[in-house]
């Protein structure tokens, strides 16, 4: 008796039915993703006939997994949802590597189930799999090399997106902006790709009044050698501004940018009434950032960049206390309806370095994606420039998909520049076999030996899949690769055994390591699942879902 009826709404499933059900679900998901691994991926179509739409064509493992909402069998569904969650999380975290993780997971799980069916201990196997995973991660770290130069970066990009024009463009962009640089990827108006480099830093806050625009052709205002009043104050009365303006005029400062939390209509009218670019010109923008934390961060960045002191409402600052040294300064300031920017901020370069170092340390010290993204954005701003990539295409769908691809590739490239790259095409994982074999030879514990044997087989899975997907006989090519030695792999495009790094076939180290971690740790955990408990009736909240949203393989 492998399963027994439970209460009215529960059904409990024991081994070996539980493993078999989960295995079927895991295999279905992995087999759906497997064709997408490698430089010659095949496409997976997601049926959308319930929505009267054409099928969605996908070649990204994480998205394919995400589209599979439910499988018919209950045990299958548990397995499928388990790996689906692992792959989607990996995609969110690393941006790539889901297909590699899928085939690794499948290999570890299937071999693990076989071993457990023969009497192995799941908990001990899990423990040894994690130890073996660390061997792989350490070996990958040893193999990691750092890359620079637009050609190398373009090669990395191409190994991620398989779109040579996009890869070349991203190679050039990242060579210039660096791993922390600010890159905006927007839909283009032409069919091709275009890029623009923007000097200085800018924030998403525009002028408080259109009347402050002086260049009507370009719809923006530019100030030279401007002073900058940095604050989040709510300025209700023009008289509050008078001390600041008087100081500027006394010091022969002819341009002033006012950054404030709020300016009343009266204050704006006062600034407009006294607009005289020949003698003194003041423009105003609102404090950048949403919420107190973001605004405080923006004020701190502006202050360091321009050498000013911020006036903060919460600290009780008022402009009546302002001194000349409180103003920031910049060679150029610009503002339009949407943004304002600073070029040549005249803050102390040493203080700027220390500020960036602090932000980098915070970035390295946190795993929280939203916080990391915010910190990266701040660092990028302070580094002195940004790039915009316009992604064009023939149709809106093409533009959207290519834009998404560009964003994903850019995210992975940042990681690759920060943490280095590894030989691609599955070669780096294959190179972990000797280290695992050594551990296997040193082990006497049957569960440990099983774990290392499972991992030795698993690290071969990605390269075998890549070769099969490209239409080659995996066993024959693997023999050639083994003969060629370490670092060599098979370039499926040229059909040659080559030195992968020299040929520029490489993977971002952070992605490979994340894929290994996600696959092995999760598969090991899945192997410890001994009993499944199913609901026999759909809970109410689940039955509300419209049938058209449910996808089946």
């Amino acid at each position, binding site marked *: 008796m492998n399963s027994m009826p439970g209460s009215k709404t529960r059904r409990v499933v024991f081994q070996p039915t539980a493993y078999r059900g989960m295995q079927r679900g895991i295999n279905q998901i992995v087999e759906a993703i497997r064709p997408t691994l490698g430089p010659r991926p095949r496409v997976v179509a997601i049926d959308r006939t319930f929505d009267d739409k054409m099928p969605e064509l996908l070649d990204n493992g994480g998205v394919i997994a995400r589209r599979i909402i439910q499988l018919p069998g209950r045990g299958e569904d548990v397995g499928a949802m388990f790996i689906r969650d692992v792959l989607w999380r990996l995609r969110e975290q690393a941006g790539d590597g889901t297909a590699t993780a899928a085939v690794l997971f499948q290999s570890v799980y299937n071999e693990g189930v076989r071993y457990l069916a023969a009497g192995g201990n799941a908990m001990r196997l899990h423990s040894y799999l994690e130890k073996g995973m660390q061997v792989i991660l350490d070996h990958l770290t040893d193999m990691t090399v750092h890359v*620079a*130069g*637009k050609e190398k970066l373009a090669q990395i990009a191409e190994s991620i997106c398989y779109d040579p024009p996009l890869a070349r463009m991203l190679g050039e962009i990242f*060579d*210039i*902006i*660096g791993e922390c*640089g600010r890159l905006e990827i927007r839909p283009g108006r032409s069919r091709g790709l275009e890029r623009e*480099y923007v*000097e200085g830093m800018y924030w998403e806050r525009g002028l408080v009044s259109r009347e402050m625009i002086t260049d009507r052709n370009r719809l923006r205002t530019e100030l*030279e*050698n401007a002073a900058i009043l940095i604050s989040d104050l709510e300025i209700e009365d023009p008289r509050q501004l008078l001390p600041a303006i008087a100081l500027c005029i006394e010091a022969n400062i002819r341009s002033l940018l006012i950054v404030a939390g709020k300016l009343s209509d009266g204050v704006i009218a006062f600034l407009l009434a006294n607009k005289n670019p020949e003698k003194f010109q003041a423009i105003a923008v609102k404090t950048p950032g949403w919420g107190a934390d973001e605004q405080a961060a923006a004020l701190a960045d502006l202050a360091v960049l321009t050498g000013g002191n911020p006036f903060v409402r919460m600290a009780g600052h008022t402009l009546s206390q302002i001194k000349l040294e409180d103003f920031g300064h910049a*060679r*150029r300031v610009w503002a339009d309806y949407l943004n304002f920017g600073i*070029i*040549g901020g*005249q803050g102390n*370069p*040493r203080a*700027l*370095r220390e500020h*960036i170092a602090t932000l980098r340390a915070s970035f390295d010290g946190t795993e929280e994606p939203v916080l990391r993204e915010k910190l990266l954005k701040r660092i990028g701003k302070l*580094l*002195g*420039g940004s790039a915009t990539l316009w992604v064009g295409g023939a149709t809106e769908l093409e533009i959207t998909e290519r834009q998404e691809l560009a964003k994903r590739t850019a995210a992975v490239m940042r990681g690759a520049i920060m943490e280095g790259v590894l030989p691609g095409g599955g070669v780096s994982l294959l190179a972990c076999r000797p280290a695992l074999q050594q551990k296997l030879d040193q082990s006497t514990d049957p569960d440990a030996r099983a774990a290392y044997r499972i991992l030795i087989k698993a690290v071969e899975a990605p390269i075998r899949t890549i070769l099969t997907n490209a239409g080659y006989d995996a066993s024959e090519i693997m023999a050639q690769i083994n003969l060629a030695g370490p670092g060599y792999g098979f370039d499926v495009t040229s059909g040659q055994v080559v030195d992968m790094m020299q040929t520029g076939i490489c993977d971002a180290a952070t992605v490979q390591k994340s894929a290994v971690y996600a696959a092995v740790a999760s598969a090991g955990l899945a192997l410890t699942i001994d009993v499944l408990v199913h609901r026999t009736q759909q809970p109410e909240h689940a039955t509300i879902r419209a049938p058209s949203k449910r996808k089946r393989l």
Partner: protein
Amino acid sequence: MVEETEILNIVYSLATSPDFERNGICFAARSSGLYRSEDGGLTWQDAYASLALEVPLTTVAVAVSPNFEADRSLFAGVPGGILRSVDGGQSWHVASFPPPPPVVSALVVSPNFARDGTLLAGTMEDGVFRSGDRGEHWSAWNFGLLDLNVLSMAISPDFANDETLFVGTESGIFRSTNGGRAWREVDFPSDFAPVLSLALSPTYADDGLLFVGTESCGLFRSDDRGHTWTRIGREAVTDAVNSILLSPEFPAKPDLLALLSDALLVSRDGGQSWLDWQAGLRPEQGMASVVAPRGLGPGAPLLVGLTDGGVLQI
């Protein structure tokens, strides 16, 4: 032999024609303008004569095309921008810069200028400007350049392949490996800055050797492209290092010259030991710039720009 020509004000920079040995053409950038000599620095003429200026135009930097014999191009850094001549200084064109006008402090020309037409200008407050069209148009490229006060620049002799440049600033050193489009900070302690002078080995692409002269912390040498640094000449080099020159055969012939404000030091062993090169200055004279058109070997001429406007030929 020491000869001195009477011209006035600080000589900020000197440049010689690549074929100086044959034609004796050299230029002196100084507070009162740009001067040209066709006899190896014995006599000087106003290179801005065609501009008929009413007031002297301070010129801080001058650079000559490596292909000067053919293209006659030279460039002068002045407050507000760069002047460009394509006839050896007979006539001048103003290069366009985005406002506000920058103060150019250093100029370097690509060794591959004949093909790539690339020049870079370091400025005070505005960072680095780059031109890819022989100096006609310029745009700022300051990605990663955290200090925009550029005091010195050096370009790799193999720039055509490695696209490497260094800039010395008020607070450190930055390196570009993409032709000056983006910069990364070099691991040089900022306490030792400002960096007044930089020099790369003629075989930098192979040996990764560079020298750095600071305002108050002496002279430093790096053998690994700027990753690690060793202070050299600790006893001898105690003043601001305004300029560093290397022998064209360095490191095979490890001659090295350091120009301090009041002394000219030479090392024949790559910086291990130093000798005072007696320039024969009067007590009130200081040295501001130096150029060695034929290297640092015995008997090779050395032009030294003085703080009183004179140019010595040693």
